[in-house]
């Protein structure tokens, strides 16, 4: 993938396929450690130990249109090639946590890219799923929680064009604030 934010979009699709009702996406960046952690946590149907073992192998998939699953192997590789690490924890019936840790100063670090687009598409294309998007840079943090937004919106859907445009600006402005001193 050309941007890590595309891997995030793809990994979150697994959570949606696993029928999660709540998906948390967390990005934790440390300037001092030169590290970025990306976590995608869901409350979907989960996997047993054997499945977790198998999914990092690019020949495991439960999909039927193609014999290989590529999403998790791609994500794992993107982290490991920076000298970082990758892990999946999953409990059947409880949910799955996927974490990738990056060394941001490594030459093979893929830029994060347009995280805002990833988050807005996930939120607006999956109105039945709630999302928490947490992003932090050193000691600064911001959080978007669709449960809070939906409470404000009532029966106005999050995919109303005026709301989508507000949400996009809201995420972009908050992201920008993280990097301002």
């Amino acid at each position, binding site marked *: 993938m050309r941007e890590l934010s595309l891997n995030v979009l793809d990994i979150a699709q697994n959570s949606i396929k696993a029928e999660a009702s709540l998906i948390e996406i967390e990005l934790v960046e440390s300037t001092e450690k030169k590290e970025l952690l990306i976590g995608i946590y869901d409350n979907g149907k989960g996997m047993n130990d054997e499945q977790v073992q198998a999914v990092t192998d690019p020949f495991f998939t439960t*999909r039927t249109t*193609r014999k290989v699953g590529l999403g998790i192997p*791609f994500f794992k590789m993107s982290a490991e090639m920076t000298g970082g690490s990758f892990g999946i924890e999953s409990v059947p019936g409880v949910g799955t946590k996927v974490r990738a840790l990056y060394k941001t100063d490594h030459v093979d670090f893929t830029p994060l890219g347009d995280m805002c687009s990833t988050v807005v598409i996930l939120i607006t294309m999956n109105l039945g799923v709630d999302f928490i998007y947490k992003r932090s840079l050193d000691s600064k943090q911001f959080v978007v929680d669709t449960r809070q937004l939906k409470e404000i919106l009532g029966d106005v859907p999050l995919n109303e*064009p005026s709301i989508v445009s507000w949400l996009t600006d809201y995420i972009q402005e908050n992201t920008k604030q993280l990097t301002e001193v």
Partner: protein
Amino acid sequence: MKTLEELMALRDAAKANLTTREDSSEVTRIVVGMATCGIAAGARPIMAKFVDEIAKRNLQNVTVAQTGCIGMCQYEPIAEVLVPGKEKVTYVQLTEEKVAKIIVDHVVNGKPVVEYTIGAITE
């Protein structure tokens, strides 16, 4: 800075127009393939472009949704356009320019863009 107060105001404005939704037998559906193959080939900006064009033209009875792998990974990004009462049209190797033309010619004016379809590409 965007605030939650502003969101409340937008909600109130949107509420006023909410009741005018067309019934579902009139709705044109666009589905974009968003499996790994689609995303790697550029499905995200394609999806965003569809959403944008629909909002910009204020097309009330058109929806965009995502789907998994359509089974032709080498032709991604792929989108299907389903107009009620018409046969499904599958567009392949999409670009933002192609999306703009599909919206105008097919979705608005009812004339599929044959040269962008799977049939035309595999011939």
